[in-house]
């Protein structure tokens, strides 16, 4: 079992293609450090994210869901 201190969360991220995804790209290009905890899914708009996706994400074992647009 992992102890709570070494616990690395798994976060499901829905990123808008035009905003946050490009922002994430920029963060990558400019070599900004951020934790490797997110698993991102690119959506064409953050309005595309149905509430049910969030419950589905939690159900399939993610620790939290992050929607960004």
């Amino acid at each position: 079992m992992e102890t709570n201190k070494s616990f690395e969360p798994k976060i499901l991220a829905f990123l808008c293609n035009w905003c946050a995804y490009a922002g994430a790209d920029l963060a990558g290009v400019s070599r900004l450090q951020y934790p490797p905890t997110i698993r991102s899914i690119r959506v064409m708009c953050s309005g595309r994210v149905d509430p049910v996706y969030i419950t589905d994400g939690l159900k399939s074992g993610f620790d939290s869901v992050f929607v960004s647009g």
Partner: protein
Amino acid sequence: MELIQYLLDLSGIGRNRLQLRWVSAAEGQLFAKYVTEVSEITQKLGPFDADKFELPLAAVEQTLNSARIRWLLGLIKQVTEQGNVYNEKFKKEDYKKMLHQAAQEEYQKALIMRVLEERPLSVREMAEKTGLAVYTVSLRLNELERQNQAGLQKYSGNTPIFMGM
């Protein structure tokens, strides 16, 4: 978004499991900051045990998919900004309150439906399994019966046993 956070609170999962942030394409730095922030929040919350929350999650999902909630969500703009067919306009807060009330009822109904799917139960057993009050269960069960989604199966002694339909 506001509604699903409310439902996550209601189901004991906690609204912090869902985070919403606005980042523009030119804000790489902000994005990195937000990811760090969200990771920290999640770290504080600890791992999420999906098995433990299976019932509430399924009920939240069913609530979000229910016709009543879908309709209410779809009508927000029209009813609060233009008015309904009688030209009555509702205040945003009033509408929100009503939406929460409806969501809570639908959530409780969904919980009951879920536990009835396993096997027929008495009201007391349902209350125990769902964690709802006995009175709440009987109210919601009444509504479910009216909608033909649940019904009386048999009597065991004097206790009525209900089943899902």
